[in-house]
């Protein structure tokens, strides 16, 4: 499981749900592995979300993700515990760790799985290719079978504060380990990162230039990055690094919400690999509606407040349920 500031990432809770089902089918316990500095809260959450046991490795050098140190610690535990299946979130760090770890423990690894099941007692991890055109089932024939799981694919399992489990604190000596790197500064990624790698993007178009504040809120509620079309960057509303299209970025988000974007080729050439495209535009003839999976015809200035209210309620309800 991956943590940030002591809290489990959503994808780490999602893999607990996926892992619970597989563990039950295999008849084995589900163990959550946590590596970090302060793991009390995340360990408790892991149990409430379905783990039977939590292995918590607390070490000051594991406070933030370090490829070599996390690999060394996790490899030692995996070799000792010999789990049948190991799941990680397909986050940048999760994918980084999984590759090294798989080599270290001689495990077969499927990256970015979108579905998991068992086939004759072995893990079948499904991976989409060619822009979702094919779905391949991959089986590993190694004692330990690994997969990284795409965030947002599996639901977060219900949280049950009555659930009990076992917390095992494990001490690992990292004094002989070096990662050849020195941490100078840690910076939290924020919207200034731009939309390049974002899974969800809210794009501000020429027709929504006056709506930057509500669109920022929309992005916040959707946990999305902001993106922009060329005229919006020309006007200086967002930096050039946010520009999507021919002379900007090519993005491949799971969700792209285009507000006030007409859908000209120069924009679409950078956005057409979006999995789901939602368009809001005042002009029902706008070409973006030809490409969109969902279209809302209307003035963004009038639609956004209602949309934000509804989304705010839905997100609030989901958070309080969690």
């Amino acid at each position, binding site marked *: 499981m991956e943590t940030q500031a002591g809290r489990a990432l959503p994808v780490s809770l999602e893999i607990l749900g996926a892992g619970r089902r597989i563990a039950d089918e295999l008849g084995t316990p589900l163990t959550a592995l946590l590596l970090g500095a302060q793991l009390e809260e995340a360990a408790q959450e892991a149990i409430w979300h379905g783990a039977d046991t939590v292995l918590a490795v607390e070490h000051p050098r594991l406070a933030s993700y370090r490829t070599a140190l996390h690999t060394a610690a996790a490899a030692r535990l995996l070799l000792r515990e010999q789990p049948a299946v190991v799941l990680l979130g397909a986050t940048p760090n999760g994918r980084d760790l999984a590759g090294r770890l798989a080599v270290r423990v001689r495990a077969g690894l499927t990256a970015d799985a979108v579905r998991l099941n068992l086939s004759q007692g072995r893990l079948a991890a499904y991976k989409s290719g060619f822009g979702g055109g094919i779905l391949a089932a991959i089986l590993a024939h190694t004692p330990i079978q690994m997969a990284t799981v795409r965030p947002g694919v599996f639901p977060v399992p219900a949280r049950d504060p009555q659930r009990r489990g076992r917390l095992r604190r494990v001490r690992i000596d990292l004094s002989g380990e070096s990662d050849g790197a020195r941490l100078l500064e840690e910076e939290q990624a924020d919207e200034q990162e731009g939309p390049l790698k974002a899974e969800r993007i809210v794009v501000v178009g*020429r027709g929504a230039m006056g709506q930057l504040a509500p669109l920022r809120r929309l992005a916040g509620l959707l946990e999305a990055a902001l993106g922009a079309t060329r*005229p919006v960057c020309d006007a200086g509303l967002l930096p050039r690094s946010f520009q999507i299209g021919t002379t900007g970025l090519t993005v491949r988000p799971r969700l792209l919400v285009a507000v006030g974007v007409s859908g*000209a080729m120069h924009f679409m050439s950078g956005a057409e690999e979006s999995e789901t495209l939602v368009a809001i535009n005042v002009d029902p003839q706008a070409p973006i509606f030809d490409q969109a999976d969902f279209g809302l015809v209307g003035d963004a200035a009038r639609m956004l407040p209602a949309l934000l209210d509804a989304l705010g309620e839905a997100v609030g309800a989901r958070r309080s349920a969690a």
Partner: protein
Amino acid sequence: MPEVRPAGDGRLILDDERLEEVLELTQGAFLPCYQCGVCTATCPWGEVRPEPLSVRRIVRAAQLGAHPEAAALWQCTGCALCQSRCPKGVEIVRGLWGLRRAAFRRRQTPPELERLLWGTLEDGNPWGGAPRERARWARDLEVPRAGPGREVLLYVGCAVSYDPRLQRLARAACRLLEAAGVRYGILGEAETCCGDSVMAAGEDAYLEELIQGNIQAFREAGAETVVAISPHCLHMFREVYPRHGAEFEALHVTQLLARLLHQGELRFGSPEGGAVTYHDPCFLGRWAGEYGAPRELLEAAGFSLREMAACEAEAPCCGGGGGRMWLETDPGERLADHRVEEARETGAAALATSCPYCIQNFEDAAGAGEPLPVVDVLEAAARAL
């Protein structure tokens, strides 16, 4: 090999091998240059940027076999205003494209152009549009496919096939050709990029493959005349393809339509009124020498022409050629902004042109200030049918 440094740091370190490579790739284009500098003074970039693009310096470096600055090579739009005024008749753009090939070999191509190369390789168009959607603009029209008995092949081009705004040009072209009774056809989903942007990126090996594929496709379709909507495609078919064995006649769609007008095959039943100004696209005007056909069509369709001060062979560039559609230009330095201003000064009700890239750049520029409709000659003419 001796150390080679780029020009511009005050030193030129000469390299015989490099000199030979440059001579080969530019086919000696720069040899006649005597460094008068008219090219630098002429270059439209000097109008919008604090420093002009020093064409003369690029040529000098190449003459000596030194590396020119790669970035400067891709600043050029290929508008050919410089070479139209060159007293020695130096084929500057052809030479520059040769230098781009040398730069491509050294991986000095701007990274932004990589995408257009992949798009063309994978999808047959530099915008990465799906090949099966190439003829989507024609889905509710009965546009004939090329084949026996249809000697005129209408080559639609990538930008017109995929951009919803530009698709109107293709639809207008079909209406006009049908009205004039032309037995024409399109390749539809089988049409592939002409290679204009691939050439601009400097990738010559793949360009050769593209050209040969197209020559064969045109031949199999029985095309004797290939009619292009974009002057950039026309330039490829007229100037580049014949060097690779092509034997078909290449025309711009306005050239064919003007011919039909003279023959009495094309008539306008409901001529429009109003004054328009016409911008000569570089690749139809200076490159193909065609200034009359689009103007004749506009006038026959009922429009009166109000010329801008700089027109025909003197017309400046919109900024879209030579791969510039894929490279960002800072606001305030966009050639199209200036041209749209000049068009406004004529008092014309609309700015007409006959190139998809010009349309895109002008609409972009015209959207910012006082509205000025931008129309293609095809759209204007089709309305008057």
